[in-house]
C-alpha cells in the first residue's frame, strides 16, 4: 500500500531527522509510530505525503513513486488525508469551510474560487456527522473546544474520502480522557472504511491498545518493528532511552498506563 525504502532526511541545518528508515504499511492496517518527541515521527509521516522530501531513498504507493512529479504527488495527496497535532484549522472560518479544504484537490484552481458544488458540501457535512459535529457545521472553528477542533481536523481528512490517513500526534494536545475518545473515534472510522492509518503517538498504552503494528523510533532510526505484544520493557527502554529524560518522558510510562488500564477494565 505504502512503502518507505531506505529513507534518510537531513535538514538544511545538517540535523539528520531520519536515518535509513524502511517501513511498509499494509492495506487497512492501523499502524502506530511510537517514540519520544524528536525521534523523527513527524518527519517520517511527512515523507509519506511529500511534505518533506527525503535526502535519499524513496517512497512508493500502489501508483508508484509519489515524488515522480507534481501531478503524481497531488494525486497521492488527494487519496491521503492528514491529521495534525494542533489541528491546523483556520479559526475564523466555520467548521464546514475548514472541512471543505479536503475537497479542494477535486477541483481545479479556478473552479475552487467559486463556492464548491452541493455534492462536495454534502460530503463535508457527512464527514462532520461521522465525528458527531454536524450541528456545529456553521460555527467558527475557534469557538470549538480542543477535542471538537481535532474532530473537525479528522472530518477534513475524511472529506477527501481517503485510502490512507496520516495522523501526527493527533491526541497530544488533548487531556487524557478526550485523547482516548478522539483516538477511539479515529480507529473506528478507519476500521469501518478500510482506511490505512499511520498514527504517531508517544503514549505507550494507546499504542498497545490500537496498533495492529508498531514502529518504534529513537534518534531518527526505526528501532522496533512488530506487534504490540512484542513491545516489552526492554524494547521500551531502547525507544525512550533509560531514565535520561526524567520528567518529559517518564521511562516505561507506568503511571499513565495504570489508570488507563483500570478504565478499560471498567468499560469491559
Amino acid at each position, binding site marked *: 500500500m505504502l512503502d518507505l525504502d531506505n529513507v534518510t532526511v537531513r535538514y538544511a541545518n545538517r540535523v539528520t531527522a531520519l536515518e535509513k528508515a524502511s517501513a511498509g504499511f499494509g492495506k487497512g492496517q492501523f499502524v502506530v509510530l511510537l517514540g519520544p518527541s524528536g525521534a523523527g515521527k513527524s518527519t517520517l509521516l511527512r515523507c509519506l505525503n511529500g511534505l518533506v522530501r527525503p535526502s535519499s531513498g524513496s517512497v512508493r504507493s500502489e501508483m508508484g513513486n509519489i515524488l515522480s512529479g507534481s501531478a503524481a504527488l497531488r494525486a497521492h*495527496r488527494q487519496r491521503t488525508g492528514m491529521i495534525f497535532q494542533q489541528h*491546523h484549522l483556520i479559526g475564523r472560518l466555520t467548521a464546514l469551510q475548514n472541512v471543505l*479544504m479536503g475537497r479542494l*484537490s477535486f477541483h481545479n*484552481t479556478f473552479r475552487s474560487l467559486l463556492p464548491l458544488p452541493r455534492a462536495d458540501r454534502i460530503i463535508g457535512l457527512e464527514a462532520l456527522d461521522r465525528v458527531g459535529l454536524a450541528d456545529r457545521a456553521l460555527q467558527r472553528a475557534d469557538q470549538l473546544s480542543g477535542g471538537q477542533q481535532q474532530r473537525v481536523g479528522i472530518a477534513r*481528512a475524511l472529506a477527501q474520502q481517503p485510502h490512507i490517513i496520516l495522523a501526527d500526534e493527533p491526541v497530544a494536545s488533548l487531556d487524557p480522557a478526550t485523547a482516548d475518545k478522539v483516538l477511539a473515534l479515529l480507529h473506528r472510522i478507519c476500521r469501518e472504511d478500510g482506511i490505512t492509518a499511520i498514527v504517531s503517538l508517544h503514549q505507550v498504552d494507546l499504542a498497545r491498545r490500537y496498533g495492529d503494528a508498531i514502529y518504534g523510533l529513537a534518534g531518527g532510526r526505526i528501532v522496533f518493528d512488530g506487534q504490540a505484544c512484542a513491545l516489552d520493557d526492554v524494547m521500551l527502554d531502547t525507544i525512550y532511552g533509560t531514565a535520561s529524560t526524567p520528567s518529559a518522558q517518564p521511562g516505561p510510562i507506568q503511571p499513565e498506563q495504570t489508570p488507563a488500564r483500570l478504565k478499560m477494565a471498567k468499560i469491559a
Partner: protein
Amino acid sequence: MSQSQTYATILAEERRGGFRRAALAATILLVCIAALWITGFFDGRRFADGLPALGQLATEMVPPDFGRWQHWLRPLLDTLAMSIAGTVLAVIISLPLAILAAPNISPNGLLCQVTRTLLAFLRSVPEIILGVIFVAAVGFGALPGVLALALHSVGMVGKFYAEAIEHVDPKPLEAARAAGATPLQVITHSVLPQVFPQLADITLYRWEYHFRASAVLGIVGAGGIGFELMAALRLIAYDQVSAILLSILACVVVVDALGARLRKALK
C-alpha cells in the same frame, strides 16, 4: 556590612542607567531644537509680520460663502468616485504584488526582492508628482487623479498586504498542501481567508486617505473638488475657500464613519 555594600552597588547601577537615559533625552531635545532653528522657527520678526496677515485671512474666511454650492456637488461626487476607483485599482494591482513580495509564500526569492524594491519605488513617488505626470499624459479630469492615487497607493498597500501575509499562521497552509491543494489554492483558500480582516482594514484606511488625497490632487488639475478649491484660491475668494474646506471636512467625516462601520462588519 556586605548587605549595605550590595545595596550601594544596586543603587550605583541604577544611577548609571539614569545618566544614560538623561543623556539620551538631552540629545533628542537638542536635535528637536536644532530642527526648529534650521527651519526658521525662532525668527521672531517673521511671526510678528505674519500674525496680522493670518488674522486678515481669517476674517476674510468668515463667514464662509456657500453661494456656489450647486457647482460643488458634482466635483465632490467626482472626488468620492475618484477615491473609490483609486482604491479598487490599488487593491487589484497590490494583491498579486503582495503575494510575490511576501517571503513566506513568494515563488522565488529574487522575484520577492524585485517586487519589494518596486513597491518601495512606487511609495517614494508622491501622488502629486504622479498627478502632474498623468495630467500631462491623459489630460485634465478625474482619470489622471485615479491613476495617480492608485499607483502611489500600490506601493503602500502592497507593502502592508505583504506584511499581513508574511505573518500568516503556516499550519493551515501545510494542511491545505497535505490535502493536495495546488499552490494557488493554498493562497486562495488558506492564506487569504486568514488575512482577510487585515486586508479589509488596510483597504478601508486607504480609501479614507484617498478621499483626502484626491481633494489635493485637484489642485494640479486632476479633477474633483480640489479643482474648485484651486479656482477659489486663484480668485482670492477666501470665503469660498473656507466653505469648500468645510464641505470637504463634512465629507471626510462621513467617509471615515462609513469606513469604521464597514471595518466592523468585515471583522
